[in-house]
């Protein structure tokens, strides 16, 4: 790796300077009711002037939450932030800016129909009746030049490429002359342009900025930082000098030391293909290509796990299969019948269950009762309704059974709104609803995210039982343990393509971890 050696030389140069400008001590953050564990668990982190400190971790490890805490977007549940040794309380992003902390969000905080200059002018403390655009445009050109982040100030944000939008966002933050720059997953949108960004960041570090660089890619952590802190499930796994660590150590810190068991199972017996996807293409919400020719098939009684960092097309894949998103090309074949771009109703009838990614927004209707949500899909069929009338007693009996079988904690089936349930209980409810019929095919997206360890075990057991019973299961997960434990075959997704396919029983964890973490085939071959 070319980047490695460069960054090691650089880091030794900066080692002497160690004046800490931003420090967080014992930072805790919880989202009660949404997550069953603390999302940040007593994190210590510091950023020094003139260094790039990399924060490395899988998605869901809590990286963005730290960034939001340090920049004033979230209030801390516990802990203290220090700026240049002085304790500060950040109540809003404005406070952050005032203390010299600028954050570049992963989801860019830009008003899309506005030009770059207009977006910047928005945050300036000039009078409301002025129109400071000419000065802003000049200054943007100047900053562009200085940091080599070239951008046309007059371009509309919505017309810019992802990389350009990101540059605009960085310029917007630099406009306020921050001393600390926090970049949340800046390369997730611009894998092709990353080199360019790194150059700019390195030169900024040389100018004395403190930079907190967040990424899930080990390759980048080794390439750019002076120090790297690894985060796993809300806990800090320790900080290393970038020069004194390597891939193997980081992979271990990131994914854990233990080798999770590939769960015992009989080999897939059947040769019947239940779900087949051919050369599928689709667009994401922002009209960018999300799927670029995905093909695979799942046999009866087989679990196919999709590993990879989220945002590489997995969500869109699940949505296209279940009829929630249009395919622009390719075919979805269920039991030999073409179901491409059929509506969700047809696909439900074809026997495909869907455990959706957004469980509160899509998986349930929060203001409705638990009983109603249990029969959300089944209410249209006998015995839950007859001649378009709902059979309340059958629904009640069924809901009671599902709730108790799946161990969801529910106070009252017909009285409590589903919104008051914890995320875990909502997921139990959804899993119950989607699997009680022993469906032929299940599409499950991040099925155990945010659940506690016990609930995860139960869910895994459930999937194994369904597999025994002959269900074909597609699981999308960012948790490599989960993928390794469950999958008969493992597909690694990157940039809308399947970049690797492994046998579950023979899969090498390190190999897959590396493929995911380096975005290996994805970013390098596709561009």
């Amino acid at each position, binding site marked *: 790796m070319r980047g490695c050696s460069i960054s090691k030389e650089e880091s030794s140069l900066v080692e002497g300077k160690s004046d800490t400008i931003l420090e967080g001590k014992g930072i805790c953050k919880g989202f009660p009711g949404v997550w069953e564990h603390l999302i940040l668990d007593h994190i210590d982190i510091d950023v020094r002037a003139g260094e790039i400190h990399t924060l490395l971790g899988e998605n869901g490890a809590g990286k963005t939450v730290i960034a939001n805490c340090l920049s004033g977007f979230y209030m801390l549940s516990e802990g203290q932030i220090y700026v240049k040794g002085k304790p500060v309380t950040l109540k809003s*992003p404005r406070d952050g800016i005032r203390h010299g902390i600028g954050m570049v969000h992963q989801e860019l905080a830009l008003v899309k*129909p*506005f030009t770059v200059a207009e977006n910047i002018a928005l945050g*300036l403390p000039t009078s409301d009746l002025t129109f400071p655009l000419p000065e802003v445009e000049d200054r943007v050109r100047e900053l562009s030049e200085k940091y080599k982040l070239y951008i046309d100030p007059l371009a509309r944000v919505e017309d810019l490429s992802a990389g350009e939008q990101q540059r605009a966002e960085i310029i917007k933050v630099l406009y306020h002359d921050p001393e600390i720059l926090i970049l949340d997953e800046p390369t997730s949108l611009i894998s092709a342009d990353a080199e360019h960004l790194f150059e700019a960041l390195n030169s900024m570090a040389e100018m004395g900025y403190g930079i907190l660089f967040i990424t899930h890619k080990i390759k980048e952590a080794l390439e750019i930082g002076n120090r790297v802190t690894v985060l796993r499930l809300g806990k800090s796994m320790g900080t290393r000098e970038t020069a004194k660590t390597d891939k193997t150590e980081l992979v271990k810190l990131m994914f854990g030391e233990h080798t999770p068991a590939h769960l015992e199972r009989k080999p897939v017996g059947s040769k019947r293909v239940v779900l087949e996807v051919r050369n599928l293409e689709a667009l994401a919400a922002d009209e960018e290509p999300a799927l670029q020719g995905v093909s695979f098939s799942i046999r009866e009684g087989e679990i196919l796990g999709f590993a990879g960092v989220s945002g590489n097309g997995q969500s869109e894949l699940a949505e296209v299969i279940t009829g929630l998103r249009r395919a622009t090309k390719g075919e979805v074949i269920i039991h030999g019948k073409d179901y491409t771009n059929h509506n969700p109703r047809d696909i439900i009838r074809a026997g495909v269950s869907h455990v959706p990614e957004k469980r509160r927004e899509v998986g349930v209707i929060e203001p409705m009762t638990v009983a109603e949500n249990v029969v959300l899909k089944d209410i249209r069929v006998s015995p839950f309704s007859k001649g378009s009338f709902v059979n309340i007693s059958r629904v009640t009996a069924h809901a009671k059974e599902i709730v108790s079988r799946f161990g969801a904690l529910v106070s009252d089936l017909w009285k409590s709104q589903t919104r008051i349930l914890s995320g875990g209980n909502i997921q139990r409810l959804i899993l119950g609803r989607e699997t009680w019929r022993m469906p032929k095919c299940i599409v499950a997206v991040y099925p155990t995210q945010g659940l506690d360890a016990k609930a995860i075990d139960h869910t895994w057991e459930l999937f194994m039982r369904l597999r025994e019973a002959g269900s074909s299961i597609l699981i999308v997960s960012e948790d490599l343990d989960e993928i390794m434990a469950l999958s008969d075959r493992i597909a690694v997704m990157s940039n809308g393509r399947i970049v690797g396919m492994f046998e579950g029983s023979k899969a090498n964890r390190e190999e897959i971890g590396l493929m995911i973490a380096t975005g290996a085939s994805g970013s390098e071959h596709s561009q």
Partner: protein
Amino acid sequence: MNLGYLWGIFLGSLHAMVPITLTATGEVIGESSGLFNIGLEGIILLGAMTGALGAEVGGPIFGLLVGVVTGFAIGLVFGLVCTYFKGVQLIAGVGINLFAAGLVTFWLIDLGVPGHHAVAEKGQMVDISTPLGDFSPMILVALGLPVLIYFLLYRTKLGLKIRAVGENPQAADVAGIKIHLLRWLSTAAGASLAGLAGAYISIDWMGSVTKEISAGRGFIALATVVFSGLNPLLVLLGGFIFGFFDNLAVWVATMPAVQKVIPWQFVAMAPYVVTLLVVAGVIGRVRFPAAMGIPYERE
């Protein structure tokens, strides 16, 4: 049919376009900031009432000002409910319409003559006399104001901020803009123009107040905003189109020849039919602020 006759229709259309243009221009400000006010109808009505009474006390200009203040005050109530209190905008708007309809009818009865109040001579606006015909100075205001608001929205930082809170309040929040305050004031400013429109109708155009004086113009203004795609300059065009059809009904009423062929009721439908067709035609091409109608809550 001679040229003078056509000119008369044109002038009539201009007079009819004033209230729609003013109200729609105001609503453009409000909707740009993300608030959708269906209470405009009621605000026009109340503005007509208070404006007329104000004009009888302090002359037509004072009356117009009273209309503006009335609109602003109601806009403040609506805005408060829909920003800080996170109220449902449609319901709040309906509440204002009901309230205004009740209060104005009540007020008219209280004045002694149920249902109708003629504005005293000294309160009425005097038209500008030109060789080409008499016209109200408010026409100039209605033609000028959209241009002014266009500059405010698209050529000042305040305008940038207003449009930003309607489009992406999260981004605006990051930029340190006080979302609720800005939305509140924007919708109130917009409502003040609806109040002005109401006062114009009673003091100037019609010369009287009735409990139905707004005649759906608040809603036609909403449709005009849809037509304009939130561009005040297009509000001018939309306002004229709707004003033309509004005026047409009045014009036809004076023409017995036409009346024999088409009953007046069908001509009276014209502005509403046209509105419906135009909205059905342009919708889909029009892009509204992404966050319109959604109360803002920081995560």
